[in-house]
């Protein structure tokens, strides 16, 4: 069963910028999909069309039985089931780590303060930094901040997680700690769509790798197959450049 499916999705940012040119994509429950591709190929836009941070110009997106591209859909509700982690963490700087993780639980899930704090403690433990619950984001390293951002999403108990280059803003020595947390989620069976340049992660974690270029899905398949014997010339070109 696919949990999210996009069909015929086009995105125009203006009359000249055609960022997505017909995306058809289904992700099965429990599947881990990694999206790779050159800068500007539309990877972020695909993710952002999944949770409607960008509204597709045409095409449909359905998630968990809801058609997100319909006008009347409760998009806030859909988003509670779909966590998103950004390259730039986007923690709330005026709130402590604990408050960051508790905010949406309280406002959206309607949990009591105790319940929310309990859950925050659990999720922070899951990402390995339970002791930071009362710290402010600025007191944490980049890797720790990104792990808090992951915990913040997990606290909503989402059915799926979206990651947009979660390690690209990190110093090399912090990349591993974040990837480890993500690998841990994979073993727990979380459905994930990950945009990343970490090919090691893709090989280890992905059920499927998608290569995008110029707003289209050019090639997709099993990670080892795609990395070791790409069929499309553009895919080969891309690997030649980055490897």
């Amino acid at each position, binding site marked *: 069963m696919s949990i999210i499916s996009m069909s015929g999705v086009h995105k125009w940012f203006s009359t000249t910028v055609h960022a997505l040119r017909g995306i058809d994509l289904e992700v099965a429950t429990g599947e881990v999909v990694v999206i790779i591709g050159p800068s500007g190929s539309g990877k972020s836009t695909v993710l952002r069309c999944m949770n409607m941070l960008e509204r597709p110009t045409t095409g449909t997106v359905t998630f968990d039985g809801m058609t997100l591209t319909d006008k009347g859909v409760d998009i*806030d509700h859909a988003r509670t089931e779909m966590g998103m982690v950004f390259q730039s963490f986007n923690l709330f*700087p*005026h709130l402590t780590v604990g408050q960051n993780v508790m*905010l949406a639980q309280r406002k959206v899930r309607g949990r009591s303060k105790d319940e929310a704090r309990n859950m925050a403690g659990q999720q922070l433990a899951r990402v390995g930094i339970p002791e930071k619950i009362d710290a402010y984001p600025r007191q944490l390293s980049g890797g720790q901040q990104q792990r808090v951002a992951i915990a913040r999403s997990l606290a909503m108990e989402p059915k799926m997680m979206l990651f947009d280059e979660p390690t690209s803003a990190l110093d090399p020595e912090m990349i591993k700690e974040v990837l480890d947390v993500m690998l841990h989620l994979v073993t727990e069976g979380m459905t994930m769509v990950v945009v990343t340049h970490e090919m090691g992660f893709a090989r280890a974690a992905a059920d499927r790798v998608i290569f995008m270029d110029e707003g289209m899905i050019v090639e997709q398949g099993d990670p080892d197959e795609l990395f070791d014997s790409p069929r499309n010339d553009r895919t080969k070109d891309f690997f030649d450049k980055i490897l």
Partner: protein
Amino acid sequence: MGATQHEVWNISEILPPEERDDLDPWWDRFPWWAVMLGAVIVLFGYYTFFVESYNNAWRFIKPGIKVTVVVTLWAFLFSMIIGLIAGFGRVSRNPLLRNLSRTYVEFIRGVPTLPLLFFIAFVIVPTVAPWFGLTNKNISKEWRGIAGLALVYGGYIAEVIRGGIQSVEHGQMEAGRSLGLSYGSTMRSVILPQAIRNVLPPLANDFIAMLKDSSLLSLLAINEITQLSKLYVNVSFQPRETYVVLTFTYIVMVLALSLVLHRFERWMSRDRAGAR
């Protein structure tokens, strides 16, 4: 271009202030300006309270202080309400609200303050009053003046509010929305608490500017201190005494207000200082 070697290599100017402190002697850093300003205020104060002709002017002007203060407070309250509405309108997703707010703001910014005050007091207020079941005569000149200042500064404050909201990174809104928070919830819990720290200093500036601009209301014959001073000059023929006292009164009021606002700002950003 045109910079001499000396200007380029004047090290005390290129170093950040903390390091500069070690290089410059104390008398170079000492706030002489504060001492001199203090001296001028003390001198004017001495005249105002201890020299009879000045003291007479003071006693004539004094009742106007209350008018100046009350008018400024009301006007600031209303301009904050207007400014908040128009400021949120400026960043609204609704194009109608966005354009209405923009029209208002650009209109205000396109006309000098004094003509605008006349326009509001003698065109807008008489036009709008009947809508609320009031006749033009029901509205005192004080309220016309307050309406004028409030509408003028509402436009400036709207821009401050807009700037404050837009100064918060776009990713904050996206993070909030991605967690399932509504637009309004994200605004309240995420954007505004961060924006407020950015808007306090410019709001304080507008408050002070408004106190000073309340003097323009003398042209609507409102009996605030500038108007009373003009009246006193007309009867006493003592412009020197009167305007020394008036100047003294304003600078003390402005300094007092700055001090209060500065305290308030510090109190508002307590314990979260630097949390960005």
